[in-house]
C-alpha cells in the first residue's frame, strides 16, 4: 500500500525474510540429511553433515530406476497437456461464439463436474477403463487426464475468450478464412496468456498426481515419480538416508521447472483464479 520505503517497510522486510527462512527449514532438513549416513542422521538430524555422501543418491537412482520414472512422468504430463489444451480451447471458443441455451447448459454441466471428488468416479472408471483397454498403458492414462482436465481448463478458456474482441475474427472470415483457419491462425495465438495458465495448473496437478497412476499404471516399467518414490518408501521404511535422497530426486524436477518459470507461474495462477 505504501509506495515509499520507510522504517516501517524495513521492519516488514525483516519479518518477511525471517518467515521465509522458517518456511524453508523443512528443505534444509531434507537436503543435509540426504547426504549423511544413516547413523549420523540418528545422532543429530539438525547438524550439518561431517562428510558429504553421494552414495545415497547413486543407490536410489538405481533402485527406483529414476530415468525411467522421470521419462514416464514427463511423457504423461506433456501428452496430457497437449490434448487438454487443444480440446478445451476449441470447445470453449466455439461455445462462447455460439450463444444459446445449448451452449449454456453444456457449460454449466461441465463446470459443475469440478465438485465431483475423484473418489466418486474412480471405482467405476477402473471398470470402464478395463473394458476400454485404458489400464496399464500410458495412452490410457493420458486419455483419462483429458477427461479430468476438461472442466477447469474449459472454464478458464471460456472466461478468457469472452474478453477477446470478435471483430478480428469477422474480418478474417470475410476475407475467406475457414472456421478452423480463424481458430488456429487468429484466435489460438490470442489465447496464449490463458494457455500458459492452463498448462501450468495441469502440469503441477498431473506431475504430482498419485492416486490415478497408482490405479492405472500397475507394472513397474510404467511407474511415475510419485509411484516410484512411494513404493521405495514402502520397501525401505524408515531408511531415512536413502529415503531422503529419493525425496530429493523426486522433488528436484518440478522445483527446477518452477524456479525457471516462477514469474509466469505466479502470474498465471493469479490470473487463473481471479478470473
Amino acid at each position: 500500500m505504501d509506495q515509499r520505503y520507510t522504517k516501517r517497510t524495513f521492519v516488514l522486510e525483516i519479518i518477511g525474510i525471517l518467515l521465509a527462512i522458517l518456511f524453508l527449514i523443512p528443505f534444509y532438513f531434507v537436503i543435509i540429511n540426504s547426504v549423511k549416513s544413516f547413523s549420523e542422521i540418528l545422532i543429530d538430524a539438525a547438524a550439518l553433515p561431517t562428510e558429504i555422501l553421494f552414495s545415497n543418491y547413486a543407490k536410489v537412482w538405481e533402485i527406483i530406476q529414476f530415468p525411467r520414472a522421470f521419462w514416464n512422468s514427463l511423457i504423461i504430463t506433456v501428452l496430457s497437456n497437449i490434448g487438454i489444451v487443444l480440446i478445451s480451447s476449441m470447445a470453449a471458443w466455439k461455445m462462447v461464439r455460439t450463444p444459446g441455451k445449448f451452449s449454456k447448459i453444456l457449460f454449466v454441466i461441465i463446470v459443475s463436474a469440478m465438485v465431483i471428488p475423484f473418489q466418486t468416479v474412480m471405482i467405476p472408471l477402473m471398470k470402464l477403463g478395463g473394458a476400454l483397454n485404458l489400464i496399464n498403458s500410458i495412452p490410457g492414462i493420458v486419455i483419462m487426464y483429458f477427461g479430468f482436465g476438461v472442466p477447469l481448463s474449459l472454464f478458464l478458456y471460456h472466461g478468457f475468450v469472452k474478453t477477446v474482441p470478435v471483430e478480428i475474427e469477422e474480418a478474417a472470415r470475410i476475407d475467406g478464412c475457414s472456421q478452423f483457419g480463424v481458430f488456429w491462425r487468429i484466435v489460438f495465438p490470442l489465447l496464449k496468456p490463458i494457455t500458459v495458465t492452463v498448462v501450468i495448473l495441469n502440469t503441477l496437478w498431473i506431475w504430482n498426481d498419485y492416486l490415478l497412476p497408482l490405479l492405472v499404471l500397475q507394472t513397474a516399467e510404467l511407474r511415475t515419480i510419485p509411484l516410484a518414490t512411494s513404493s521405495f518408501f514402502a520397501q525401505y521404511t524408515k531408511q531415512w538416508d536413502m529415503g531422503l535422497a529419493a525425496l530429493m530426486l523426486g522433488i528436484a524436477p518440478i522445483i527446477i521447472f518452477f524456479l525457471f518459470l516462477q514469474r509466469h507461474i505466479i502470474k498465471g495462477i493469479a490470473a487463473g483464479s481471479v478470473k
Partner: protein
Amino acid sequence: METKMESKVDPVVPNTSGRTKLHDVKGDPRRKAKLKSILTYTAFVGPALIFFFVIQIIPFLMGIYYSFTSWNGVSSAIEWVGLENYKRIFTNDEVFFNSFMFTTKFMFAAVIISNLIGFGLALLLNAALKTKNILRTVFFIPNVIGGLLLGFIWQFIFVRGFASVGELTGLSFFKLPWLGDETTAFWGIVIVFAWQISGYMMIIYIAALQGVDNSLLEAARIDGANNFTLITKIIIPLILPAFTICFFLTIAMAFKIFDLNLSLTGGGPFNSTQSVAINIYQEAFQNNRYGLGTAKAIIFFVVVAIFTTFQVMATKKREVEA
C-alpha cells in the same frame, strides 16, 4: 450407415416450410448453412465433450448404480441390494463416521489457518519490499511439490527433525509425540497442509489487493482510520471475491485430502486421522467392497457439493460490486 445419415438430415427437412420439401438439402443455402454450423460446432466441442463424458459422467452414473449393489469388484454378477449399503453406512459404520468427523474438523481448522496465513502474507508482501518477488517465490515453493512427497518430507521432520530441535532448544513443543498421538497427529496434518497451501492463497490475495484503489485507502487514512479498520472495513469488503475463491479452493482441497494424509500418517494412530478419501479407497481396493465403496463415494460427493455450494452462495452474497 445409410439410415444414420438420413436421421441426421431428416429433422432439418420438415422443420422448414412445406415447399422446401421439394428441394434437395444441398439446394437450400439456409439449411446448408445450418447443417454446416451444427457440424462445425460438433467438430469443435465434440472432442472435449466425448472425453469429459466418458471419463467423468459415465463413471459417475455407473457409480450411482453400483452404490445399490453388492459388487465386489471382481465377479461379473452384480447383485442389486437396494438401499442396503446406505443403511449399513448410516447405522453400522463407525470408522466411516469417524473419518467424516475427522475430515470435517480438519477442513475447518485447515481452511481457517491457511487463509489467515495466506492473507497475512499477502498484506505483508503487498508493501513495497525490496525482496518481495523472492519472498513470493519462497512462500509458493511448497505448492509445486505433490502432497505425497510433502507427507514423506514432513514425516521425517516430525520424527527426527523436531526431536533434534527439541534437544537443542529444550522447547517442549518439539518434544511432543508428533504423529504418535491423536491430537498432535491431527495438528501435524493441519500444519503441513497450511504450509503447502498458504502460498497459493497468498498469490490469489495479492492479485486481489493489487486491484484495490489506493486513493480510497488514502482518503480513509486522512479520515483517521487506523490499519485495523482499513483492513476490516475497506480492504476485506473490497476483495471478498478473492475470499470466495480461496475458501472454495481450500474447502475442496481439505475435504478431498488423500496423498498428504496417506504418506504422513497413513490414517493412524488407530484410524484417528483417516480422511474420507482414504476410507473410500480402502473400502474399495483393500476390502474389495466396491458396492459399499461407491455408496460412500456418492455420500462424499453430496457432502462436498453441499458444502462448496453453500460457501460460494454465502460469500457471494456479501460481495460488493467494485
